[in-house]
């Protein structure tokens, strides 16, 4: 043990003499862990929230009973089942308006609530009395309280009528939900004796034991779901995040790998001396691993703190995009679980071990005596390049194979990963080829040396250059995708938001009043009624949109393809346009036929067109509004659009606000809605952009640190040139040119690779993740800009080592020649 400590002390003394190398290693570990765990923290935060929400709604963690034919059923079923020994608990749920915001009101029965649901623990035994006894309590998450602009103890009205019990803040609740006693819910919702569903606690009973009729209702057993709807919907988003986290992790590991490789190389004589002085091979191996793991623990811990900071900084954006895209509510503050810390540390340690694997294997096989160099560097390099080339080719074949045969989101990401890896592996081969070509054309001693020396430098620089290549390619790829999306999205918004003013009335009565009022106005050119309902097709929710027959729609609807007489057939009522997502999911296209379960009987629809519906996780159908109301008579008709001449818009809005007390959410002009949509869109990609910037930064650091570590070992190569009369300044300029040249070649290679990545994202990953495909566009200005950024990053990274060289003391250079070294 004591011996091990001595050996460890000797190994650690290396870092004291090479602090820059230690810094590089730690930067790599910290960057890798921070980016990875930051993303994981965001994912975890989101998952926890979904689970909380799901457990609360009683949908996911417990089985439940519903009446498939009706929204609610009599609570007599509850009494009957309880008597028969079923551990059921009633829930009544509805969406309500509170202070102009739509929230979920949940009525529960705390005594019978199954223990598995989160809300049972939300109600403390002590609070039970206050919760059930008049006036009762309304439990609400602190975030929701803030959102609603209310304080604890307030008694807001729902839908501007019934008053809720006093609000009480309850931290572990999901945001966007109000919880009251079921009796209160029945009263304020005006649904006496009614319940939406029965939660089933842990029981030996199964679906088969259920009587055909329970208190007159035909109940259906819904099995518990391990995954929540919300989780499924947002999976793609999180997968995207995870992919970026993983990529950043890999870039960080590149740094770790190069730092460890270099340290190993430099410590080789020391390791041999240790062996000669009587340290056994086993002890040395163990101590080296212990050293590595200790450094990984240190780097991992700092990295975790960095990850926490990153996650906390990005959380508002992530929360906003999840809310915007999927309506998922995330609390605004980060709360992490112990697993996150453990997983982060484990990733750091495993990553460090993986990055050091080659060095560790070499150490284990280290011959005690330094053998004569079996190959000249050129031969060794040729073998290395050959191996890289073969691996690159294998990865490329794998990428193409997965592209052809794979058919899932995971396969999409696998294609991306294989493609990037293949390109990274091929990079040194390509660079070597370019440098060899340059060497062939070189005239004179110095240029010839320049090219040959650049080639010799490749192995030391290649990892950093690979990191640069990957970071740039991903930047180009994601940038191109976002820009393509942006361009398409704006055009699409123009098509979808064709009306000038949008109204959403609080209820049918108000909607009717507004319509009567609108009919009296002369400054309104058209009123376009709209209606929406939701059905299940193949087990997934699908929106049906009713659209009026009006030129506004005919001219602007973002159709991707359609039958010639599409609009006419839609308005005759037996045909529909479907969204791209639905078309892909159900394998429907123009000419297909679709059947919908409607209360007014089956509704058969011909598909006569497919339209773009970006960002909507649900499938959608557009049908004639009159046909929709015929088949779904209960559809609320509270929404409509208006065509108004631009000069009258402000007037109309002001008049409507005054007449009907409509707030900004209920009454909006097109420009505002568009701006809001673009804002949501931008925030969605802000996270990606931030991670992108981090990755590029890490690649820059990788370049800097490899150049710094390389600059020390470069002296023996440079000293002879200095000795034959080339000034240090001139040498520095040559070094600068050389590094910039290889960085430029790398960046130029990154551009086509990035476009390939973009294509993969748009044509493979996006289609699998979101169900729609963007038109692929190239943005030359963006490419140029990124090229510039890369060159500036390379320049900055090169500058420090170059300055060191230019200022080097002649004695340092002389030392290279001294025998006594």
């Amino acid at each position: 043990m004591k011996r091990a400590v001595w050996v460890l002390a000797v190994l650690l003394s290396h870092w004291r003499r090479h602090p820059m190398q230690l810094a590089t290693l730690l930067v790599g570990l910290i960057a890798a862990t921070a980016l990875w765990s930051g993303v994981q923290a965001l994912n975890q935060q989101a998952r926890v929230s979904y689970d909380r929400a799901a457990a609360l709604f009683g949908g996911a963690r417990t089985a439940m009973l519903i009446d498939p034919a009706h929204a609610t059923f009599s609570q007599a079923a509850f009494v009957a089942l309880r008597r028969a020994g079923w551990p059921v608990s009633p829930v009544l749920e509805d969406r309500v308006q509170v202070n102009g915001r739509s929230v979920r009101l949940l009525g529960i029965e705390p005594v019978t609530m199954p223990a598995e649901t989160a809300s049972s623990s939300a109600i403390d035994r002590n609070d039970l009395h206050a919760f059930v006894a008049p006036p009762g309590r309304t439990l609400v998450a602190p975030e929701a309280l803030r959102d609603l602009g209310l304080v604890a103890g307030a008694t807001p009205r729902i839908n501007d009528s019934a008053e809720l019990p006093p609000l009480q803040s309850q931290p572990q609740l999901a945001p966007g939900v109000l919880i009251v006693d079921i009796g209160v819910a029945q009263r304020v919702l005006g649904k006496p004796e009614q319940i939406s569903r029965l939660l089933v606690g842990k029981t030996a009973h199964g679906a088969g034991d259920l009587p055909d009729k329970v208190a007159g209702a035909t109940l259906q057993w819904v099995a518990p779901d391990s995954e929540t709807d919300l989780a499924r919907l947002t999976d793609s988003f999180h997968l995207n995040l995870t992919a970026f986290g993983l990529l950043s992790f890999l870039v960080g590991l590149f740094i770790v790998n190069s730092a460890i490789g270099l340290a190993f190389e430099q410590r080789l004589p020391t390791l041999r001396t240790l062996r000669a002085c009587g340290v056994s091979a086993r002890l040395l191996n163990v101590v080296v691993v212990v050293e590595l793991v200790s450094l990984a623990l240190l780097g991992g811990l700092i990295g975790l703190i960095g990850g926490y900071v990153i996650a906390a900084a990005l959380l508002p954006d992530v929360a906003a995009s999840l809310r915007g895209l999927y309506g998922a509510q995330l609390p605004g503050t980060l709360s992490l679980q112990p697993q996150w810390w453990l997983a982060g540390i484990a990733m750091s340690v495993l990553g460090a071990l993986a990055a050091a694997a080659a060095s560790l294997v070499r150490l284990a096989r280290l011959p005690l005596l330094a053998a004569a160099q079996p190959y000249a560097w050129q031969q060794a390099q040729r073998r290395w390049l050959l191996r890289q080339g073969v691996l690159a080719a294998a990865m490329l074949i794998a990428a193409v194979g997965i592209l052809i045969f794979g058919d899932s989101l995971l396969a999409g990401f696998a294609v991306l990963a294989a493609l990037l890896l293949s390109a990274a592996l091929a990079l040194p081969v390509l660079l070597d080829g370019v440098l060899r070509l340059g060497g062939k054309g070189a005239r004179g001693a110095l240029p010839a040396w320049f090219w040959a020396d650049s080639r010799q430098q490749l192995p030391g620089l290649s990892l950093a250059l690979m990191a640069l290549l990957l970071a740039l390619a991903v930047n180009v790829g994601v940038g191109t995708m976002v820009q393509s999306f942006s361009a398409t999205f704006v055009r699409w918004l123009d098509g979808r938001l064709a009306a000038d003013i949008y109204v959403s009335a609080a209820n049918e009565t108000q909607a009717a009043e507004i319509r009567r009022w609108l009919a009296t106005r002369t400054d309104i050119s058209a009123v376009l009624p709209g209606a929406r309902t939701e059905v299940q097709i193949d087990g997934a929710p699908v929106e049906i949109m009713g659209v009026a027959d009006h030129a506004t729609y005919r001219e602007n609807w973002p159709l991707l393809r359609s039958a010639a007489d599409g609009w006419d057939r839609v308005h005759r009522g037996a045909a529909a346009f479907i969204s791209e997502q639905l078309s892909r999911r159900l394998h429907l296209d123009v000419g297909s036929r679709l059947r919908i379960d409607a209360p007014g009987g089956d509704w058969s629809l011909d598909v006569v067109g497919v339209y773009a519906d970006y960002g909507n996780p649900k499938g959608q159908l557009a049908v004639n509004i009159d046909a929709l109301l015929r088949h779904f008579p209960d559809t609320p008709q509270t929404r409509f659009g208006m065509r108004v001449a631009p000069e009258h818009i402000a007037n109309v809005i002001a008049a409507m606000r005054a007449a009907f007390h409509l707030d900004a959410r209920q009454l909006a002009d097109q420009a505002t809605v568009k701006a809001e949509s673009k804002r949501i869109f931008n925030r969605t990609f802000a996270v990606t952009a931030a991670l992108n910037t981090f990755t590029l930064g890490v690649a820059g650091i990788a370049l800097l640190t490899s150049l710094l570590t390389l600059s020390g070992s470069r002296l023996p190569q440079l000293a002879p040139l200095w000795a034959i009369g080339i000034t240090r300044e001139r040498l520095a300029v040559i070094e600068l040119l050389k590094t910039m040249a290889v960085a430029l070649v790398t960046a130029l290679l990154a551009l086509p690779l990035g476009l390939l990545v973009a294509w993969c994202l748009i044509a493979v990953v996006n289609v699998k993740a979101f169900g729609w495909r963007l038109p692929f566009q190239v943005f030359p200005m963006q490419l140029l800009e990124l090229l510039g950024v890369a060159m500036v990053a390379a320049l900055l990274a090169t500058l420090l080592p170059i300055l060191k060289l230019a200022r080097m003391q002649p004695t340092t250079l002389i030392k290279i020649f001294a025998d006594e070294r």
Partner: protein
Amino acid sequence: MLKVVSLSKSYRSAQETVDVLRGVSLAVARGESVALTGESGSGKSTLLHLIAGLDEADDGEVWLEDVRVTGLPDAGRAALRRARLGLIFQQFNLVPSLSVADNLAFQARLAGRHDAAWLRELIARLGLDGLTKRYPEQLSGGQQQRVAIGRALAVKPALLLADEPTGNLDEATADEVVRLIRDLVARSGCGLLMVTHSARLAAMLDRRLHLSGGLLA
């Protein structure tokens, strides 16, 4: 104390087989200093490496006191090197990241045989006073080699093996270093087997062996 019995070693590569040692036998007694000479490539280093257990012989035996070095597993050979052998090489083999003081004490500490008084004496005799806080790269070649000698002797080994310890030094320094080694060996009572190709240096030791054609003469 050191006994080598018909030791042989050959290096095989795809192209050829080089028989470096073909049955070498020798003995070094306690307190005896022996010079090993021979042409470059005659196998002197190979012989030393085999004795130190740094490499494995094809045939024959090496005995150090009561221990048979040949046939010991790696851990056993490491323990033997640690506690009973001192090694000095042509290239000084110091740990660049450790100070002179740490380099000197290092092997003795590993072996658990750190003796402060003995180390102080060594430092004084090697003329390293005032240099102990420096790092190897801040020393001249002669000084570095003296540190290596100090490290090897600090454990009070039974046998000191030196492979051309003066190969990198000028003549005057070489004489001085060999004289130091000889005196310190006498002072500590260990045996010495030193490779050199200088007849002048070989003459400073008790006995001389010549390696040629894989055999001792």
